[in-house]
């Protein structure tokens, strides 16, 4: 993973912005110079709700390269969370067509835990509570599962404390969080911090952040954004789902996509966001 190549690909991708922002559909443009740099490539993805077979995603195309930050915006119900969850293998949805390749591997042939081991992470819009399971046990299980899959030695409880303490600090989280049950009785903001703590513990390569900014006060937003920025590198990718510019002011996206009725209908840069703030979705 040569540094230079990554840099050049970022330049290459920002030039694509200009070409693409005028298009209605986001078409993945192959970057012939450095094909190895694609982290996640979603093509013509369609998915429906398992059971009722109601189609939700109607052909999503999205390419995320190493080092890039992408943002997806769109009205409630346009399919942003569905896309996020389909990528990590949520059983509520069935993939009916298209492909998703993550670091060269077909995501849809992998179990959810294998996708996590491979470095894909979703911060859930509404993280569930798991009564009876302590946060520290959960985090350590998650951490050791990935370490085991990567062939690293597992961390014992003491080693794990040493590993997690700086991460708690980075997120301005009280260590007592570790002894509480997973998300049980957490405020909305605490749940979001806890998701980012999990991201930090897993050291994922590709983070999908579904509305990490909703329910956060300004201090919490700053903590969370700061942590995400610290976890970013030229080797990682970020896909943020958000409604608000304020998050994007902290975590600057290279690309902004607009999702509508299960498709990405427009792709551009931060100027799209300003346009949105000014006139709403109707003006796009």
């Amino acid at each position, binding site marked *: 993973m040569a540094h230079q190549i990554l840099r050049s690909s970022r330049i290459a991708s920002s030039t694509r912005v200009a070409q693409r922002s005028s298009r209605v559909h986001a078409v993945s443009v192959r970057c012939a110079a450095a094909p190895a740099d694609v982290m996640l490539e979603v093509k013509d993805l369609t998915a429906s709700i398992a059971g009722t077979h109601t189609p939700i995603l109607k052909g999503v195309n999205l390419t995320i390269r190493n080092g890039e930050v992408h943002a997806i915006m769109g009205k409630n119900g346009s399919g942003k969370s569905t896309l996020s969850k389909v990528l*990590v293998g949520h059983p509520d949805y069935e993939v009916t067509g298209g492909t998703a390749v993550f670091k060269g591997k077909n995501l849809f042939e992998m179990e*959810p835990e294998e996708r996590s081991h491979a470095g894909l992470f979703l911060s859930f819009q509404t993280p*569930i509570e798991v*009564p009876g399971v302590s946060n520290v046990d959960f985090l350590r*299980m998650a951490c050791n599962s990935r370490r085991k899959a990567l062939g690293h030695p597992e961390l014992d409880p003491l080693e794990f404390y040493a590993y997690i303490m700086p991460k708690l600090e980075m997120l301005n989280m009280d260590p007592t969080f570790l002894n509480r*049950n997973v998300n049980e009785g957490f405020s909305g903001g605490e749940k979001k911090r806890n998701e980012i703590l999990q991201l930090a513990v897993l050291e994922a390569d590709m983070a999908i952040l579904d509305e990490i900014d909703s329910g956060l006060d300004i201090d919490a937003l700053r903590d969370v954004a700061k942590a995400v920025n610290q976890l970013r590198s030229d080797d990682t990718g970020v896909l943020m789902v958000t409604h608000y510019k304020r998050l994007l002011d902290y975590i600057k996206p290279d690309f902004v996509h607009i999702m509508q009725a299960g498709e990405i209908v427009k792709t551009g840069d931060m100027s799209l966001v300003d346009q949105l703030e000014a006139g709403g979705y109707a003006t796009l």
Partner: protein
Amino acid sequence: MQASTSLGSACRTQLAGKRVVSGHRYPNARIALKPAKSGAVASAVVAEDKWLARTVKEVATPSSLAALREQSKSALATLRMPTTRNEDYRFTDIAPLLRTNVQPAAAGAAVPSELLAAHELPGAAARLVVVDGVLRPELSSGLSGLPAGTYVGPLAGAPEAVKQKLGSLSNSRGGPFAVLNGSLVPEVLVVAVPAERQLEGPLFVLHLASGATGADEVAANAPRLLLHAGTGSSAELVEEYVALPGGRRYLTVAVGELFLEAAASVRHSYVQREGEGSFHFKSTLVHQAERSQYTLAEASVGGAIARHDLVIQQGGPETHTQMSHFLLCGPSQTHDLHSRLTLDHPHGTANQLHKCIVSHASGRGVFDGNVKVNRLAQKTDAGQLSRNLLLVPLATVNVKPNLQIIADDVKCTHGCAVSDLRDDELFYFRARGISAESARQALVFSFGAEVIQRMGHPVLQKRVQDDVSRTLLSAEPFAASA
């Protein structure tokens, strides 16, 4: 914690639970009770029921217990022990108990100090050690440090007004085992908290039972508790039931009567960790005056056949009742919870969480939970949830949560699941890289923790959780990880 067998396939296939609808309550217990003649000498009454006749021998009756004994004995005369033909015992077959001969436990059983040391409750205001139903002051601690006006001790010394209440709930609403307790109980432990007193730290009642030696014999352990929480008072009661060393063959038949006056608050933890193979029948009868708050957390993990009859009456408006229960049924264990909560007044709240694991094909869980919101109980908020986990094929639960609403302006939630673990919980683990197998194991082991943690005593929680782990590790799906 790595299971090498997959629970996944095992769990999805055996939804062996049945839902049972309809039923009368306590057909046998509709006993005409003669009014108590005070000072009457207990006369030997011959019970029609053969087992009862064998069981209820002449037991010493302190004069303070004469009235209760008399009432129980007359009730006993026409009582028949229930069989599975009785709706209330349809799924709880007590035949193994009825094949035994119940003997009185020898008085003054020795209690090893290691056993006491292993059953501490840090932070307790007092620990009351009750052996075979008799309070043993020499083994107890903290009694002298209780605040003035608070009475904890045998019935004879209790405040007169509290004494009067003995039997008033159990006589009218207790089942057959409550009657049996009245006939066998050697002594009553009274807890009386005066008005406006906030007791700091729980009162910890450790019940110990000794076993019988003869092959068909079981020793009788018939403890009884009477709690009175005065107006505006608050108290916490923790009850734990365990066996004395070697105690396998015994029958615990316990009664607790709890009276909460206006605005009183009582937290009650009840932990059933009886010896393997023992029988345990407990009746808890609670009367709550207006604005009182009763919170029960129960864990039932020991014994062979165990049943809890819980009867709670909200006697005034703005009264709050919270019940949570965890039952674990391992090999040859039947655990039964029958609860009845009645709301008759406006602005009450009631919440019940029932969780049950059956980990062996010979295990059975029974739950009949009735929450009745009567016509006058408007603006009530009631919730009831029963979650049952069957870990192996043929494991059985018979669950009948039932929320009866007669009032019309009531907020109720109601749910019952006889099924696998929650999919969303499992997925959350998997999304974080934890295999489905490890996730299942973690979720099963912590299934009861939600209830046990509500007791708020880590040491007690650990005792229960260790029992749970032992039972679960013997279960087929986890055996390989032992």
